[in-house]
């Protein structure tokens, strides 16, 4: 690996700690603000061009729902169609198995190097570091992934993994690191985006021309025909999909759509939502292998890795509609300030906050904190091209974190224990429920609170301290509303009601 290490998301801190650090990084915040605001306006224009956007959106959601409710049916059809077209289908229950399958397939070719198209699924399973362990070097060929790989960094955005870097930082990474991985950056490289793109073109050219094995994901898989679809911009996808002799595609099982015709919806929704274009520069589709055109061998690795657990949750299931456009990231006030790394997975932003805790479970402190990484403003739902009600799922997952309850864990039914950190919150809620059920207790409590108000602290002690770090405790009034009502107009209840209505 040319002496570089593989960055991973393992052992990342919980969202609040990570965000506490990242929100203090003024450079990061400036980069993110600039990029997300640029794309927001463009997306709105691209979407406004289609007066039937809401119908396309509803159709997109419905097609995905149909697929998910009958996923077994469509996976079988897909497998048959891919096999009939000359492809080989493999099934991976988890990340480890997927990595093992891909490693074995690459080994069988005798090659030690592979070229990769940007793929969320392979990012999710940590394929590059698994291949590195087996002595296989994976070259990322998407410009942003290249920036991330050269910088020993982690992706922070679904569409633009290096969104946290500005042009000056990218220039420095290219100038310093390209030589380690292959052709060095040209002398006197400037930070003009066109020059940076040219440097990437030159650096990767030899890798494409010599590549024998390509690894990709897919945006869609058509069950009816066995057709895979990759949507991209730079042409690195086309290079990886057509020049190598062997192509290995790792794709989540939820990426299947029923028919070729269904693409008419998604190929309108996706480009406008993600890069804000009428159409992205390149879309490639392939069905198995083609004689004397493109790879001679095609392997499809179908990945579960928590997707069936997500599918088992009737509220959370809708997260599997996601087509990875990243529109929700670009409008999210929390993402804009915290940045993608704070989410601790390949899926940052609002969609990550509902997808990651479902794919991985809420067992770790980080994953349990993700459903709280939102102000529930709902902007993500508004822009989602497949109408995923992200706030609904966030609230649902918060309930699971606090209350525990039944969930699917690696394919089996389990009962999740309530999260530890929320014991005080639960106790407070139980006490409040009891008091509100007992009017006399409530009255006594309120009077007691009023009489002692001079002695109340401005900040809570103990477990409540964190809550008052950024807020003042509300002041208790001299008199409770109920007492005031009774004193000023409440001789009897009925009279009081008459006066006000």
């Amino acid at each position, binding site marked *: 690996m040319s002496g570089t290490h593989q960055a991973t998301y393992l052992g990342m801190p919980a969202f609040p700690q990570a965000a506490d650090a990242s929100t203090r990084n003024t450079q990061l915040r400036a*980069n993110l603000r600039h990029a997300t605001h*640029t794309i927001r306006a463009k997306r709105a224009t691209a979407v406004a061009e*289609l007066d039937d956007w809401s*119908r396309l959106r*509803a*159709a997109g959601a*419905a*097609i995905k729902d*149909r697929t998910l*409710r*009958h*996923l*077994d049916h*469509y996976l079988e059809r897909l497998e*048959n*169609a891919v096999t009939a077209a000359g492809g*080989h289908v*493999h*099934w991976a*229950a988890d990340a480890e*198995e997927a990595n093992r399958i891909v490693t*074995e*397939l690459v080994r*069988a070719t005798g090659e030690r190097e592979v070229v990769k198209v940007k793929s969320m699924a392979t990012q999710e399973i940590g394929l590059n570091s698994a291949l590195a362990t087996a002595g296989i070097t994976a070259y990322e060929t998407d*410009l942003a992934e290249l920036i991330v790989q050269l910088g020993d960094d982690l992706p922070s955005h679904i569409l*633009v993994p290096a969104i946290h870097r500005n*042009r000056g930082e990218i220039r420095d990474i290219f100038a310093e690191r390209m030589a380690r991985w292959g052709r060095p950056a040209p002398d006197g490289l400037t930070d003009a985006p066109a020059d940076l*793109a040219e440097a990437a*073109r030159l650096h990767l*050219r030899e890798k494409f*021309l010599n590549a024998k094995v390509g690894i990709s994901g897919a945006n869609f898989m*058509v069950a*009816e*025909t066995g057709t895979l679809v990759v949507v991209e911009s*730079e*042409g*690195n996808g*086309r290079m990886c999909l*057509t*020049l190598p002799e062997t192509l290995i595609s790792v794709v989540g099982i939820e990426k299947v759509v*029923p028919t*070729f*015709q269904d693409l*008419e919806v998604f*190929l309108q929704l996706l480009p406008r939502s993600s890069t804000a274009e*009428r159409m*992205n*520069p*390149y879309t490639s*589709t*392939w*069905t198995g292998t*083609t004689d*004397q*055109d493109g790879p001679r061998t095609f*392997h499809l690795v179908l990945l579960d890795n928590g997707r*069936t*657990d997500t*599918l088992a949750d009737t509220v959370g299931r809708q997260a599997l509609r996601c087509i990875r456009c990243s529109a929700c990231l670009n409008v999210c006030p929390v993402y804009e300030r915290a940045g993608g790394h704070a989410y601790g997975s390949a899926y940052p932003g609002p969609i990550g906050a509902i997808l990651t805790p479902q794919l991985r479970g809420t067992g770790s402190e980080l994953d349990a904190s993700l459903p709280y990484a939102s102000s529930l403003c709902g902007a993500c739902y508004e822009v989602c091209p497949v109408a995923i009600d992200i706030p609904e799922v966030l609230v649902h997952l918060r309930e699971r974190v606090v209350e525990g309850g039944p969930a*699917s864990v690696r394919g089996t039914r389990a009962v999740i224990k309530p999260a530890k950190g929320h014991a005080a919150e639960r106790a407070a809620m139980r006490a409040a429920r009891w008091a509100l059920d007992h009017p006399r207790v409530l009255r006594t409590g309120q009077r007691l609170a009023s009489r002692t108000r001079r002695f109340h602290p401005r900040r809570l002690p103990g477990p409540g301290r964190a809550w008052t770090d950024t807020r003042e405790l509300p002041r208790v009034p001299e008199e409770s509303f109920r007492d005031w009502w009774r004193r000023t107009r409440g001789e009897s209840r009925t009279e009081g009601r008459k006066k006000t209505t």
Partner: protein
Amino acid sequence: MTPPDPGPRKPGTPDPGSRKPGTPDSRALVMARVRRALADVPRAETPDAVPVERTYHRVHGDRTAAGTVDLLAEHLADYRAVVHRAGPASLPDLIARLLADRGATSVAVPPGLPASWLSAVPESVRRVPDTAELTPHDLDAVSSVVTGCAVAIAETGTVVLDAAPDQGRRRITLVPDHHVCVIRVPDQVVGSVPEALERLDPARPLTWISGPSATSDIELDRVEGVHGPRTLEVILVAPEPETAGQN
């Protein structure tokens, strides 16, 4: 376009491409998980019972055939494709001029490209036939490529290639840095994405091209020209000879 159904694979049948990992057991395991996860779906429910309302437009707006071609030209140019118009008679001269302007010394030629298209290109420009023996390195040394197309989409400014004989293998339109693509108008032009998919055969490898290669990876700003051809020139050829020349 459904390929022949080989029938469901029985559990226990070895997976064709792999040896050990990804055993049929994993297939059975994942399928069993999927079915368990869908316990809430009534057994009697068929996939078609889940409603999908296709109330979206087949095509956006109402245009004449000529209007659709104009929109295509406009949208192609929007994403930095260079658009030209020609008639059948003026096409060879236009192609020859585009290659000459570029200083092309060689041109990749799909097997089924109409012979007349390159008839005005001087012999000094080497013809590189699209053969299986051609290596990516060979192609990297080729200046330009001239092809036809399968269909073009006006609303999105997209040209679709389906590797038919007048377009050749996918790689010949990828590695050379200059792509000249000829569209027969109005026959090959459709208004919308849904109309295009209707005309396409999913069994063929498809390449949808909307402008030259580009990236938005630096500060989410679009820059043209990364790995694919950095110059895309599109020639709209109308059956009746028109005044040839740049749009």
